[in-house]
């Protein structure tokens, strides 16, 4: 049987998956931001143009996607603080795994709290 290397800070386990999630969430937010600066720029075209496009933010499909965006920003931001702590705090590497699960928990709790409120608005009248 091949020997499976144990996880390190970077390979396998929490270190690697937090990095993968950080990367994917960063790219996702980046592309959202490109679109978002353009849709906001429509306020300089006319009130009508802006309102028509921003209405799409209130449709069910985009409304659901916004939950993903909020989750991505929460995870990326909080995990960013974790990365900074690993770099600058002397106990950072010791607690990196604990900090990862704190990041996940806070993200999940915050999204769970936001979801009913947001969906009531998106699906309500």
């Amino acid at each position, binding site marked *: 049987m091949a020997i499976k290397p144990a996880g390190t800070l970077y390979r396998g386990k929490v270190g690697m998956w937090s990095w993968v999630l950080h990367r994917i969430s960063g790219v996702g937010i980046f592309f959202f931001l490109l679109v978002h600066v353009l849709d906001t720029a429509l306020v300089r075209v006319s009130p009508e143009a802006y*309102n028509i496009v921003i209405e799409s933010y209130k449709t069910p499909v985009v409304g659901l996607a916004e939950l993903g965006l909020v989750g991505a*920003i929460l995870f990326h931001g909080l995990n960013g603080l974790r990365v900074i702590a690993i770099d600058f705090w002397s106990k950072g590497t010791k607690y990196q795994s604990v900090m990862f699960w704190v990041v996940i928990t806070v993200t999940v709790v915050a999204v769970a709290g936001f979801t009913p409120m947001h969906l009531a*608005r998106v699906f309500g009248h």
Partner: protein
Amino acid sequence: MMSVTIETPNRPRTRKQANWEKYGWLFMRVSGPLLIVLIFTHLVVNLVLGDGIKAIDFAFVAGKWADPFWQVWDLAMLWLALIHGTNGMRTIVNDYAGQVKVRRALTTTLWAVCALLILLGTLVIFTFDPCPAGASAELLASFCPAQ
């Protein structure tokens, strides 16, 4: 144990140029915490408070940007998020683009898009007219004279 004598020992590496890669690394770590405050507040104000997403329209934006506080807020968020995001994308391009030509093309494109959007977004904030003449009154904020 025999000691090894090096005839012409290397001097420690010295640099003539600024270490841009290090400044980029630092910038990610300085802009990050600032972006947490800027973006999390942006999301609470626009998605959680009041009627959240349902309340957003031209008049909502007019209400915010009539206040210099939110103009400066959004300006900081625009610049920091775009530079942070673009520099992060550059890191990813460096990781995956094998050929020098491809890497250069992608990196140049990224910074060009970044500069264009910063310019556009900045102009939008400072040339914004909350009460444009000739617009129908029901689309405008309550403080507009047309109301």
